[in-house]
């Protein structure tokens, strides 16, 4: 095993372990903080796969923005600080969920091992890799149309979030239909 493979295995284990903590911890805020560990180690995995730009975007948007949004959501829904017993479904449903997840993992792992065992990623042969220059060139040359469409989608999401969270929208309509 090369150093990169050892590092990848270690960081991958951290990612999977902290993801397990996200879905099993009994403190709401800790789940968000374990999610930071998972997302950060996935960013490290991108770096090890030589996808440098994607790794930094992952740090900026996921760790920087998404987790902060989730923490805001926890705060605004008056999430309890400390241990809470009502985060998990009843035992029977949890067992069913574990069986489903285990079956999905088993089937996918079997298929993946069957199809891709023995294949190797040649890292380091390609000097361009996923650096910012390469990724930026691909994004603004080949993928510029989907990129612009995505900005419209973001605008729509922005408008939608504002409409959903304003208190005065919908009141007039309700009164109109009530009359």
């Amino acid at each position, binding site marked *: 095993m090369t150093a990169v493979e050892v590092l990848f295995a270690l960081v991958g284990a951290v990612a999977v372990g902290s993801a397990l903590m996200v879905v099993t911890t009994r403190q709401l805020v800790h789940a968000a903080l374990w999610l930071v560990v998972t*997302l950060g180690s996935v960013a490290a995995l991108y770096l090890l*796969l030589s996808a440098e730009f994607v790794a930094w975007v992952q740090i900026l948007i996921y760790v920087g923005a998404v987790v902060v949004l989730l923490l805001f959501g926890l705060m605004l829904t008056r999430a309890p600080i400390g241990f809470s017993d009502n985060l998990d*479904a009843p035992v029977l449903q949890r067992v069913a969920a574990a069986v489903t997840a285990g079956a999905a993992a088993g089937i996918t792992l079997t298929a993946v091992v069957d199809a891709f065992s023995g294949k*190797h*990623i040649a890292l380091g042969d390609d000097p361009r890799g996923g650096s910012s220059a390469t990724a930026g060139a691909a994004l603004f040359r080949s993928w510029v149309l989907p990129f612009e469409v995505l900005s419209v*989608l973001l605008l729509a999401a922005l408008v939608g979030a504002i409409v959903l*969270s304003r208190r005065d929208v919908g009141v007039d309509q309700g009164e109109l239909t009530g009359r």
Partner: protein
Amino acid sequence: MPLLMPLVVATLLFAIGIYGVLARRNAILVLMSVELMLNAVNLNLVAFDVWLRDELLSGQVFTLFIITIAAAEVGLGLAIVLLVFRNSATSQLDDLLELREPDVGATR
């Protein structure tokens, strides 16, 4: 590096996400589990992109798009969760059993 390493990590992350979506009761924890599943898919895309040496960098660009869509999804999802919390004072998913307002049919 064997291609299997990122694929196995991604599969495990996805399965953990499935478990979280099915077993958690809090709406925001379910959103977190959805993020785990999206990350698993992204890891797959990057791994296959690096393996295939794609000229157009499709896998990595798709990963960037998915990250953006995930940010939009979390924003909208949280707005919906907050709206539900304002209307029914709970963010526990199995407390939300009503599909309509209780007195709409009675007044007509």
